[in-house]
């Protein structure tokens, strides 16, 4: 493994940042501070953080409606994100995007996306663009098992394989597709089998093992950067919360989530144990990182709440460039 101690510290901190960001989003939503709808990625932190750890700052990601984690993992600013959720002018989108539309082009974040599978086409275009410009940039396209059934994946995957584009289609198999289990809607036995139809390698990884995700994505990224073409990578994980905040979760047994929340399966606990057990970290180091993450999110909430709402004139701004 070629992650420095500082990088490991950053990754652990980032996982907690995501956990606490989504906890805050849920609390704010339940407190009627957020409009519309909000989706959390609790339990899936290792996929986002592990994958983005294998990327350069100028590499691209496309995210999903469940995108807070991807954005924070790629270096997104919690203050600008929280302000966006609160609809404030200091938010990433000046309060016009909300939870499902956070983008930061400077960090290569081509946007969360409100359409299931909505990022797949444009991720492929970003890879085509990187190839045309000879920039050496790579794209990680995050989507879920639900989105794996969208037609755009077939079209874009075929194109990426045809032209050997530098892209990793990273399917987070969190086992749920909106308000239903995903399994009854996927005909193939294993999702990575779809890669064969696209004409690219299909790999699978334990999505709750941060270092395993990092290694798998790193391998695919190196191959892509060297002109070796796309990879379809399935990360097995679990969506601990509902599709949206407030989802009554009538479609699954309560014990199931409890099992995935246990320290044996929880991705942050698992990474923490490796840091302490194999990589020489002290429990106290981890505890201070957790507390720092908590403080960072508290600061982000305070920043967002203190920020002004947009003026009415903003309604007509940025319709056209």
């Amino acid at each position, binding site marked *: 493994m070629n992650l420095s101690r500082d990088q490991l510290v950053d990754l652990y901190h980032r996982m907690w940042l995501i956990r606490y960001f989504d906890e805050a989003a849920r609390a704010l939503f339940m407190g009627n501070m957020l409009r519309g709808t909000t989706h959390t990625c609790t339990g899936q932190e290792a996929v986002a953080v592990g994958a983005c750890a294998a990327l350069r700052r100028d590499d*691209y990601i*496309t995210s999903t409606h469940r995108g807070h984690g991807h954005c924070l993992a790629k270096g997104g600013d919690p203050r600008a994100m929280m302000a966006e959720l609160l609809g404030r002018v200091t*938010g*990433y*989108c*000046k*309060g*016009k*995007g909300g939870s499902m*539309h956070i*983008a*930061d*082009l400077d960090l290569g974040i*081509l*946007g969360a*996306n*409100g*359409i299931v599978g*909505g990022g*797949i*086409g*444009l*991720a*492929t*275009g*970003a*890879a*085509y*663009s*990187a*190839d*045309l*410009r000879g920039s050496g940039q790579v794209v990680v396209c995050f989507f879920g098992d639900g989105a794996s059934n969208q*037609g*755009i994946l077939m*079209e*874009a995957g*075929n*194109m990426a394989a*045809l*032209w050997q584009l530098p892209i990793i289609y990273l399917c987070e198999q969190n086992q749920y597709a909106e308000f239903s289990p995903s399994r009854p809607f996927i005909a193939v036995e294993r999702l990575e089998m779809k890669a064969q139809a696209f004409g690219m390698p299909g790999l699978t990884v334990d999505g709750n093992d941060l270092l395993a995700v990092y290694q798998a994505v790193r391998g695919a990224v190196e191959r892509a950067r060297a002109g070796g073409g796309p990879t379809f990578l399935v990360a097995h994980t679990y969506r601990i919360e509902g599709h949206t905040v407030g989802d009554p979760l009538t479609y699954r047994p309560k014990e199931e989530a409890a099992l995935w929340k246990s320290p044996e399966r929880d991705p942050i606990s698992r990474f923490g144990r490796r840091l302490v057990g194999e990589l020489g970290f002290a429990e106290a180091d981890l505890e201070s990182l957790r507390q720092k993450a908590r403080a960072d999110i508290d600061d982000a909430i305070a920043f967002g709440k203190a920020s002004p709402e947009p003026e009415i004139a903003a309604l007509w*701004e*940025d*319709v*056209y*460039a």
Partner: protein
Amino acid sequence: MRELSYRDALNEALHEEMTRDPRVFVLGEDVGRYGGVLQVTRGLLDKFGEKRVRDTPISEAGIMGLAVGAAMTGMRPVAEIMYIDFSALAMDQIVNQAAKAHYMFGGKTRVPLVMRTQGGGGRGNAAQHSQSLEMWYVHVPGLIVVQPSTPYDAKGLLKSAIRDDNPVIFIEHKLLYNTAGPVPEGEYLIPIGVADVKRLGNHVTIVATSRMVLFALEAAETLAEQGIQAEVIDPRTLKPLDLATIVQSVEKTGRLVVVNEGALTGGFTAEVAARVQRAAFDWLDAPIMQVATEDVPLPYNGRLEFEAIPSVQDIVLAARGALYWNAG
């Protein structure tokens, strides 16, 4: 001045813009080796190579999705969708992605792409290859919609569309490719959002789009023989619409006929009528006349199809109607 066909004018615009700006690239079905189903992209592959003239699989959503992502990351794609009818397959990419990104992300990204496509009926292509769907796109904030009627406009507007920082839906007409007209040598641009008065007159204003401009000019000839001087305006850009030029004409003539090949209901003619009645109510001397395609899927049979889409005679009768010249 030299004459060029509509097809060659578009082809010349692509050659010039791809030479000028290395960020411009073309993609679509059969655009490379074959030169495009309508030969608009002919010669580009040899000059610019396969990465910038990309033959794609038959995957309209993939084509437009790829164009959006490339546009957001610094390129200026010109995607060809062979028939506008097929753009229905790419609707998410155009409407939910391309049109929204700039606003939804707070102005932080731009999507400078052009979707070149062609629509319209009149040659027996039947219900899935003959539609005039421009109003689908006019309805979506964030998109620009351009419909040139002449070779001169086609070239100048395509060049402007490629240089524009917004997603532009550039709609050609399948029965215009072989039409010819004057196109000057050398560089020129036609600004987006500016109408063109194609014929001056002071009795009635006819606003027409795309191939219907040619019909309106023909109708104006017939009307002139009958002593009616029609002014013919081609908006050229449907969105943003140059309402001022239309209103200025209506203030002179007091009468307006709007002609568009899309279906009547919820169409362009209704939109223009609504805007003009508000902007120029006091100048109107007659109800605004609408000439549009019947609310039916276009049939294959010629006799039926020609009944469905507007004819020159329909425009003549509408103009006479606006002047209360029709008998009965």
